[in-house]
C-alpha cells in the first residue's frame, strides 16, 4: 500500500515506522471509546461523564500535537505517512483498508477538530449544565470528534465516506438533541435527507473511481488521473462537488443549515460552523489532482462558491434570529473557501487558511451567541437584545474580537486569510478571475454589514429585552473557551499567513505557493483597498441603521429583497414545490396503485379461483380443504405442463 512514487508534485507516502504516528488511530479511538462508555454506561456515568468526554477529546488533541511534532521532524517531502489499521472490506479486487493518511493537510484538520472541539466540550459543561441529558450530549460530541477524524484522516474515499456519514449521524443526533421539540426533530431529519442527496454524489464517485482505477485510495488514484481522460474526471469532480455541497451547505443543497440551528449552540459552533460544514472544502482540496484534470468541474466549484458566498451573506443580512444570521454567515464564508478551492493550487492554501481561522472566529461568535442566549432565557431574536455590552463584558469583548476578525479588520485573523482568497481569485486571471475577485470583494462589504448588524443589535443601542430578562455574564467554564478562541481570532491569521507558514507546511500536499509573501502588496493592492473601503461602508451603514434607539421590536415588513432574504431566498419553497409536494403525491398515488392495482389484480385472480373452487367443493368449507383443492389444481397444472414440456 505504501511507498508509491511521487507524481505531479505530490509527495510520496510511506508507512508509519513506529512512534506516535503508528498509533494515530488512538486519536479516533479515544473519543469513540468515550462515546461508547457514556452511551452504554447510562445514568451511572451522569456524574462524571462530561469530564470523561473532555478528557477523551483533550487526549486526542494532545496526540494530534505529538503527531504534528513528529511530522515536522521529517523532511517536507517525507511528511506523508500511511498508518494501516486493518482490512475493512475485501471482495475480489475491491480492497478497502482502514488506513489513515497522516500528512500536513490531514493534520491541520486534526488539530482544528480536536483543538476547537476540546474548547467547545469544556464550554458545554456550563452551557448544558441544566440539561437532564447532558451525558448523552457529550457522548454525541465525542462521537462527532471521532467521526470527523475518520473523515480527514482516511487514506481512501471509502473510509472518508465512513467518516462523512459518521459526522452526518452526529449532526443529525445533535440537531435533534431536544427531541421533544418537533421543530428540532424535523430539522434533524431535513439535514440528514439533504445530506443524503449529496452523499449520492460521493457514493457514485467512489463507484466510478473503482471502476476506472481499480482502487479508491488517494495516492494511487491521483497518480493515475492523467490516464483517465477529462470527461471522466469531470464527472468524478462534479459528483464530489455534489457531496461537498450537501455537507458544506452550498447551493443548491444549502437549505438545511439554517434549520440546523435548532441544535444546542455548542453544536452550532463546533459542527455547523467550525468543522463539519467545512468537510466539503476538505474534500475538494484533498481531491485536487482530480479537479485539476477537470477544468469544467473546477469552474463549477468556483461558481457554486461565489453564488453561495453572496446568497449566504444576503440571508445573513435579514435574519433576526442571531444563530440563523450567523449560519447565513457560515454559508457565505464557506462559499469563500469553496471558491478558493475551485481555483486550483493557487487557492488551496488560501481556502485551508481561511477554513482554520474561520473555525476560530466563527466558533467564538457562536459561543458568544450561546452565552447571550444563556443570559437571555434562550431568546434568539436580536430585536429583543440591545445594550448588552455593559452587562456581559467578557462576552462582548470576545464576540467583538471575532466580529472584527470576520469583517476583515487589518491584521486580525480574518483579514489575513480573506485577503489570501481575494488575491488568489484575481490572480487566477482572465475574466473569470476578475468576476470571482469582485464577488469576494463585494462579499467583504456584505460581511461587514451583516456582522455589524448582529453586533450592534446585540450589544449596542437600547435595551429591548423581554420583561423577565435578567442577563448576566456566563461562568468561567464558558468564558475561558471564548477567550481562547478570541485570542486565536485575533492572532492566528498572522501566525499562519505571514511568510506563508501554513501554505509552506501544506505544500507537499497542495503545491508550493506561487509567489513570495509580500505584505506591502497585500496592503496596497487595489483589491484589498476596495475590500477595506466596502467594509467601512458596510459597518457605517449598519451603525446608522442598528446602533440607535429606533430599532423596532417587531421586524418591519421590508422591501422585496429583505423579504426574500428572510425567506432564505426561497430555498425551502423551491424544495417544497419541486420535491416535497410532488413526492407526497407520488407516494399517495403509488400506495393507491399498490393497494388497488397490483394487489387488486392478485385478489381478483384469487377471487375467481375461489369462485371456481366453490363450485367444485359445494358442500365443503374450511381452509384445510381449500389448501388440498389448490394442491389438486396445482398438480393438474403440473401434469399438463410436464406433458407439454416433454412433447416440445
Amino acid at each position: 500500500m505504501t511507498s508509491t512514487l511521487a507524481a505531479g508534485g505530490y509527495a510520496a507516502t510511506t508507512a508509519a515506522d513506529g512512534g506516535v504516528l503508528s498509533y494515530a488511530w488512538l486519536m479516533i479511538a479515544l473519543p469513540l471509546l468515550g462515546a461508547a462508555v457514556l452511551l452504554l454506561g447510562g445514568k451511572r456515568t451522569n456524574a462524571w461523564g462530561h469530564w470523561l468526554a473532555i478528557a477523551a477529546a483533550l487526549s486526542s488533541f494532545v496526540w494530534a500535537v505529538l503527531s504534528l511534532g513528529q511530522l515536522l521532524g521529517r523532511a517536507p517531502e517525507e511528511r506523508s505517512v500511511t498508518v494501516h489499521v486493518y482490512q475493512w472490506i475485501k471482495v475480489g479486487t475491491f480492497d478497502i483498508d482502514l488506513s489513515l493518511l497522516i500528512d500536513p493537510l490531514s493534520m491541520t484538520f486534526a488539530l482544528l477538530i480536536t483543538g476547537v472541539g476540546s474548547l467547545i466540550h469544556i464550554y458545554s459543561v456550563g452551557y448544558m449544565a441544566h440539561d437532564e441529558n447532558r451525558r448523552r450530549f457529550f457522548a454525541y460530541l465525542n462521537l462527532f470528534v471521532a467521526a470527523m477524524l475518520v473523515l480527514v484522516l482516511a487514506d481512501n474515499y471509502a473510509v472518508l465516506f465512513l467518516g462523512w456519514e459518521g459526522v452526518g449521524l452526529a449532526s443529525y443526533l445533535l440537531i435533534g438533541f431536544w427531541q421533544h421539540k418537533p421543530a428540532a426533530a424535523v430539522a434533524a431529519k431535513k439535514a440528514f435527507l439533504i445530506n443524503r442527496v449529496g452523499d449520492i454524489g460521493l457514493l457514485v464517485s467512489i463507484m466510478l473511481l473503482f471502476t476506472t482505477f481499480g482502487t479508491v485510495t488517494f495516492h494511487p488514484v491521483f497518480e493515475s488521473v492523467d490516464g483517465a481522460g477529462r470527461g471522466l474526471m469531470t464527472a468524478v469532480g462534479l459528483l464530489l462537488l455534489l457531496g461537498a455541497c450537501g455537507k458544506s451547505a452550498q447551493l443548491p443543497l444549502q437549505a438545511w443549515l439554517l434549520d440546523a440551528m435548532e441544535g444546542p449552540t455548542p453544536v452550532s459552533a463546533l459542527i455547523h460552523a467550525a468543522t463539519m460544514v467545512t468537510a466539503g472544502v476538505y474534500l475538494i482540496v484533498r481531491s485536487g489532482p482530480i479537479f485539476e484534470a477537470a477544468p469544467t468541474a473546477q469552474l463549477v466549484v468556483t461558481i457554486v462558491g461565489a453564488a453561495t458566498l453572496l446568497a449566504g451573506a444576503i440571508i445573513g443580512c435579514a435574519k433576526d434570529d442571531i444563530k440563523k444570521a450567523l449560519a447565513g454567515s457560515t454559508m457565505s464564508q464557506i462559499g469563500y473557501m469553496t471558491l478558493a478551492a475551485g481555483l486550483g493550487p493557487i487557492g488551496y492554501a488560501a481556502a485551508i487558511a481561511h477554513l482554520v481561522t474561520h473555525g476560530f472566529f466563527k466558533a467564538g461568535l457562536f459561543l458568544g451567541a450561546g452565552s447571550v442566549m444563556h443570559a437571555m432565557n434562550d431568546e434568539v431574536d436580536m430585536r429583543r437584545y440591545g445594550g448588552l455590552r455593559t452587562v456581559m463584558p467578557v462576552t462582548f469583548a470576545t464576540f467583538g474580537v471575532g466580529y472584527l476578525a470576520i469583517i476583515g479588520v487589518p491584521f486580525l485573523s480574518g483579514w489575513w486569510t480573506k485577503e489570501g482568497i481575494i488575491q488568489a481569485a484575481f490572480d487566477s486571471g482572465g475574466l473569470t478571475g476578475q468576476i470571482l475577485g469582485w464577488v469576494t470583494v463585494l462579499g467583504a462589504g456584505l460581511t461587514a454589514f451583516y456582522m455589524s448588524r448582529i453586533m450592534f443589535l446585540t450589544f449596542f443601542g437600547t435595551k429591548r429585552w423581554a420583561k423577565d430578562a435578567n442577563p448576566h455574564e456566563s461562568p468561567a467554564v464558558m468564558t475561558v473557551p471564548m477567550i481562547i478562541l478570541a485570542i486565536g481570532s485575533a492572532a492566528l491569521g498572522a501566525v499562519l499567513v505571514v511568510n506563508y507558514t501554513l501554505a509552506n507546511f501544506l505544500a507537499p500536499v497542495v503545491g508550493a505557493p506561487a509567489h513570495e509573501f509580500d505584505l506591502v502588496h497585500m496592503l496596497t493592492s487595489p483589491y484589498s483597498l476596495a475590500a477595506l473601503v466596502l467594509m467601512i461602508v458596510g459597518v457605517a451603514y449598519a451603525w446608522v441603521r442598528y446602533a440607535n434607539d429606533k430599532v423596532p421590536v417587531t421586524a418591519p415588513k421590508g422591501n422585496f429583497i429583505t423579504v426574500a432574504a428572510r425567506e432564505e431566498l426561497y430555498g425551502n419553497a423551491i424544495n417544497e414545490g419541486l420535491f416535497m409536494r410532488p413526492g407526497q403525491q407520488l407516494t399517495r398515488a403509488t400506495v393507491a396503485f399498490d393497494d388497488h392495482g397490483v394487489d387488486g389484480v392478485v385478489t381478483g385472480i384469487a377471487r375467481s379461483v375461489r369462485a371456481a373452487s366453490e363450485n367444485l367443493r359445494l358442500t365443503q368449507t374450511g381452509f384445510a380443504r381449500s389448501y388440498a383443492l389448490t394442491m389438486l389444481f396445482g398438480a393438474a397444472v403440473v401434469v399438463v405442463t410436464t406433458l407439454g414440456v416433454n412433447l416440445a
Partner: protein
Amino acid sequence: MTIPWLTLAIALPALGSLIVALIPRERVELAKRVTLACTLVVLAIVGAMALNFDPSGDRLQFTEVHPWIARFGVHYAVGVDGIALTLIVLSALLVPLVVLAAWKEQEEAADRGKGYFALILLLEAMMIGVFAAIDVFLFYVLFEAMLIPVYFMIGRYGRGEDRRYAAMKFLLYSLAGGLLMLVSVIGVYAYSAQAGNGTFLWSELAGPEGLLAGVDTGAARWLFLGFFVAFAIKAPMWPVHTWLPTAAGSARPGTAVLLVGVLDKVGTYGMLRYCLELFPGAAKWFVWPVVVLSLVSIIYGAIVAIGQSDMLRLIAYTSVSHFGFITLGIFAMTSQGQSGAALYMVNHGFSTGALFLLAGFLIARNNGSAQIADYGGLQKAAPVLAGTFLVVGLSSLALPGLSPFVSEFLVFVGTFTVLPVPAIIATIGVVLAALYILWLYQRTMTGPLREKLAGVKDLSGRELWAVAPLVAVIILFGVFPQPLLNVINPAVEHTMQQVDVSDPAPAVGVDQASGQEGADE
C-alpha cells in the same frame, strides 16, 4: 468418524417441536423453556459448525448424502458452502431471540396455546434444512413444507381480524410459485435422465460438466423461469410482493422476524444457488429483466413504505426495497455484487429482524396498535427503546459503520462496474431509505409524549436480551465485516466460475510506474 452436524441441527428442533407438542396444554411455561433451551442448543451446534468451517477448503462441507427414493435419484443430501452456512447461522441466531420476544406476546395473543412454540421449532428445522439441502428435490420439499408452520403461525396465532385472510393469501401466493417450481424440478430430473443419469443431486447437475449442461437454450430458460418465479414470490419481488405486507401486518412481530428475516432469504438464496448455477446461460439471458424488476422493487418498495400508516407494513415494504438490492447484486454477476448480495441477506436478517422485534415491543406497549399515528414522543418515556430503535433504523438505511452498509456498498460497487446506469438509479433508494426510517422515528419517538403513553416502561431485561445481540452483531459486522466475507467470498467465486462470469478489469488501472498498488491484485 464424522459428526452429522447438519442432521443434528435439523433433527434437534424437529424433535423439540414434537416434545413441545406433547407437553400438556396448560404447562405453557414449561413449553417455552423447552423451546428456548432447544433453540440455544441448536445455536451452539451451528456455532460449532461455523468455527469448524474451513473457508479455503472444499466448497461444500459437512456433507451427508444418503439415498432416499433411489428410483428417482432423490437423496437426503445436506451440506453447506459459505453462503448457506451464514444463512443457517442467521436462522439459528434469530430463532432464540424470537422465542424470547414471544415470551410475553404469548400471554396477550389471540391463541395462548403452546402450539406457537412447537411451530417455531418445526420451522427452525425446516429453515436449516432448506439452506442445507444439496438435493433439488429435498430442497423443493422443504421449500413447500415450510409453508405449513408459517400458515398456522399467521392464521391461528397472528394479530387482528384479517389474519386468516393474510395467511391464506400467503399460502396461495407461495403455492402458485411452488407449483411452477415443481414443474422445473421435474424438468430437471427429466433432463438429467436424458443425459444418462436421473438424479436430483445438485453437485451432479450444476456446472459446465454437470448433467444440465446439455439442456437446449429454450428449455433452460423455461426451467429457469419456473425456479425464478417461485423465488421472486418468496423474496418477494415487485410485482408479486403484495402478500408480504399483508402477512407481516397480521403476523406476530416474532413471526414477521422469521418470515422476512429468514424465509424470504430462501428466495434470493435459491436464485443464487439454483437459478444461476443450474441454468447459467438462461440466467445471463435474463439479467436485464431481473435488473429492471430489482430497480422497480428498490424504488417502488421504498415509496410505498414511506406512505404506510402501519409500522409492520412499513417495515415489510422496506424489505421489498432491500430485496431489490439483493437481486440486483446477484444478477450483476460480479464478485462484489454477489458477495454483497449474500452478505445483504445476512445483514438484512439482523437489521429487519431487530426492527420487527422492536416494533413488537412498541405494539405491546400501546394496546396492540401498530398504527404509527398512535405513537409520538416515546423517547421521553423509553429512551433506551428509542435509542435502540434508532440504531437499528439507521442500520436499515445502511449507515456506514453498521453492517448493512457494507453489503449495500458492495452491491453498488459490484453493479456499477458492469451496469453503471442501474447502479445510479438504485441510489435513489438510498435517499428514500433515509426518509422512511427517519420519518418513522420522528413520528413515533420525537415530539411531545402522548398522554396515553405517559406510563410506558422502557425496555425490560428480557426485551433487551432479545434485541441486544442483534445490535451487537450489526455494529460488529459493520466495523469488521471481513470474517463474514471471508466465508462468503469463496462460495461466490465458485458460483461465478460455474456461471462462467468474471469481474471486469479497471478501465485505466493504477499508474503503471508506481506498480506496487497493482502488484497485489
